[in-house]
């Protein structure tokens, strides 16, 4: 009797926490496939590389929770990267205010999409599709198509080993912050409620539009910050940064169990989702798998993760 109970619990655990399960499995497999995987060098690299995708995934998650989607994040990353680089090289501004200004520009792009969605009633997909091309075009116009190279000792400070990798620390802090925001704030609660049933929330006396708008604003800000991180890592602000990143961010949320219908999803799991995608890339790079087959494998892993969740929801329904 008791052993049966335990067996059931383990199964339940695996189904409920399949995102973490996949992640741990992937780490073990990666370690077995490549001796180089568990070196400090490689792990630091992963963390540096994944900081940007993680931030974008967190922003995307809040938009998805409302039942929306933000396709503009990849382009807004390019805006963040180019704006910060140009402020530093062309105007000679210190890298910290430059970062802040870049994030503000990202915030404005996000608010623009958010206003179109919440107040003009345009679907998130369409509104952010428009912002996506506007932001990308903006980044190209700004740089006139030429990547902006930054001098040493400016933005690269935030990827510096001697400063304990500020990017990694900042990302970790933001992850914790947004886990808490989702779990403990009225804002986080309301965003989920709006995604579940906006009419009911309105009739409960809550103005839903501003919550929808704010998620896009957050997504834009985090995307711009992610773009700054990429620029810092490469010491270059390029208008081509973040291409297809919106799809990886959506995939990260979905691998993390978020529902595109809204109302369901967790920050921590979306972060793990982003890391899963990053790890797959990393280990395949270590094994010198060319990038095209990598995409194929990635696609199948997304399908596998989502199939696992469908099994989960079926299990829940019969109880």
């Amino acid at each position, binding site marked *: 009797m008791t052993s049966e109970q335990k067996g059931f619990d383990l199964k339940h655990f695996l189904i409920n926490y399949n995102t973490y399960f996949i992640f741990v499995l992937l780490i073990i497999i990666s370690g077995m496939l490549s001796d180089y995987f568990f070196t400090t060098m490689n792990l630091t690299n992963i963390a540096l590389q994944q900081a940007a995708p993680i931030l974008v995934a967190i922003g995307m998650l809040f938009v998805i929770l409302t039942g929306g989607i933000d396709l503009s994040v990849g382009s807004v990353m390019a805006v963040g990267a180019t704006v910060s680089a140009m402020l530093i090289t062309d105007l000679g501004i210190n890298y910290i205010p430059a970062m802040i200004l870049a994030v503000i520009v990202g915030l404005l792009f996000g608010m623009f999409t958010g206003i179109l969605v919440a107040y003009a009633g345009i679907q998130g997909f369409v509104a952010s599709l428009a912002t996506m091309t506007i932001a990308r075009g903006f980044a190209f116009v700004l740089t006139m198509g030429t990547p902006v190279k930054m001098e040493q000792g400016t933005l690269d400070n935030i990827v510096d080993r001697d400063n304990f990798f500020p990017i990694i620390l900042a990302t970790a802090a933001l992850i914790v912050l947004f886990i808490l925001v989702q779990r403990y704030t009225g804002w986080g609660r309301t965003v989920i409620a709006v995604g579940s049933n906006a009419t009911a929330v309105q009739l409960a006396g809550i103005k839903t539009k501003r919550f929808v708008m704010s998620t896009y604003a957050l997504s834009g800000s985090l995307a711009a910050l992610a773009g700054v991180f990429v620029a810092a890592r490469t010491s270059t602000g390029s208008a081509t940064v973040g291409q297809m990143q919106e799809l990886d961010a959506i995939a990260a949320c979905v691998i993390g169990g978020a529902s595109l219908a809204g*109302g369901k999803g967790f920050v921590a799991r979306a972060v793990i989702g982003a890391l899963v995608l990053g790890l797959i890339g990393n280990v395949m790079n270590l094994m010198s798998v060319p990038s095209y087959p990598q995409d194929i494998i990635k696609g199948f892993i997304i399908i596998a993760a989502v199939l696992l969740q469908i099994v989960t929801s079926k299990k829940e329904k019969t109880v």
Partner: protein
Amino acid sequence: MQDEYNIVQMNNISKRFGGVKALTDVSLNVKKGEIHALIGENGAGKSTLMKILAGAYKRDEGEIIIDGNEAKSTSPKKMIDMGVSVIYQEFMLASDLTVAENIFIDNMAESGVFVNWKELKRKAKTQLERLGFGHINPEDTVGDLSVAYQQIVEICKCLARNSKVLVFDEPTAVLTFSETEKLLSIIRQLKAEGVSIIYISHRLEELFEICDSITVLKDGGYVDTVATSKINKDQLVSMMVGRDIEQLFPERNAEIGEEILRVENLSTSDMVKEVNFSVRKGEVVGFSGLVGAGRTETMRAIFGADKKSSGKVIYFGEEVNFKSPKDAIRNKFGLVPEDRKKQGLLLEQSIRMNTTLSAMKKVKKLDIINHKKEKAYAKELLASVSTKYGSLEDNANSLSGGNQQKIALAKWLAADCDFIVFDEPTRGVDVGAKTEIYKVINRLAEEGVGVIVIASEMPEIIGLCDRAIVMRHGSVVGEVPKEDLNEDNLIKLAMGV
């Protein structure tokens, strides 16, 4: 002999979901050509039993025999092929397709690949005419039809499959008085044509009007099957709940005080015309009328959910103009909407989150929610309306209709309103939960809250309210004081006869 022939035999059916027993040893035998009622409180197992019959759920034990053929394994397709069709409360129609396409949705291209549109329309027309609805155009889009007409399309769809057994799940819950009469006569016609009907309804009057026999379920078990002619309403209710019908409406000792809401010449651009009424402190005022009479629209306009085009609302002696539900709630004016699934609850979210949604500010500081405080508060609210639930973290849709409605009530209690409008508070709720909801309404009135109850079931208005205001076509057509409250008076006003 022919009469004794059972077209549906469900014998000793049992079903469990995880650890929960939903049905234990339940049997249902329906004779050919009879109208057989299936009744019981919500959670009694009616829906589960019908889903098993429809093939949507698989039984754990028991046997199903349809027209002499045993259904060993079941699936929706297989049961339809065997002649069983179910008309659910929420219609299974493709609202963007036409009437004709919907009627023949599972068999559009009868032979081969291509659809013969002319033939399809002609056959659809025949089906509609058979029910006396030849005036519905087979080319109309289903989503544009009224609910009653959509139901007709749904019935035609089942008939087009040559169903021998039709299951109606609460078919009249969404219909007006005259539409209900029409539907009941269609059901009688189907019976005359030899179709067997299983009829689920909470409205006992209808059962006595059309059903031949009644099977009663309680708590997932079988109680009895009786001939309608051999039983009365009171006996039936005690079979369902084990208590008497007189106790349905509990006593209220509210002191009626000064006027707290006065509405003058309220109109909206589409529906509501020059509505006047007032409500006093501690009073429960019923709003009666047919579906579509403008009662909900009137209340939504006062509440700020819809725009007023003209008129005044005087609330506690001051003229107010609520611009949004938020504005109304800030002024302690609440509205419990009629459709809890679409407007009231977050079905996929936890009971906890649902309960505290409109009073989040009571459990948060600087936007940070105190989970411990929230849980205690949610428990207290749910207990005050005697909600039965497993865990606060369960999703709202894991509960029965009655308990879902109690969550919606609990949510509004949290808002500490001085005035509450209940729009169809007991729709789709079982008898036991109804009484508990009435108790909550009484308690509010006793505490001096002004209450409006919109109800389509007249016994509810009569049993619960201090007086009734009747609306028709967007206007108030009369007011009935407590001593004159009876179904006759209400129907006459509502229908304008």
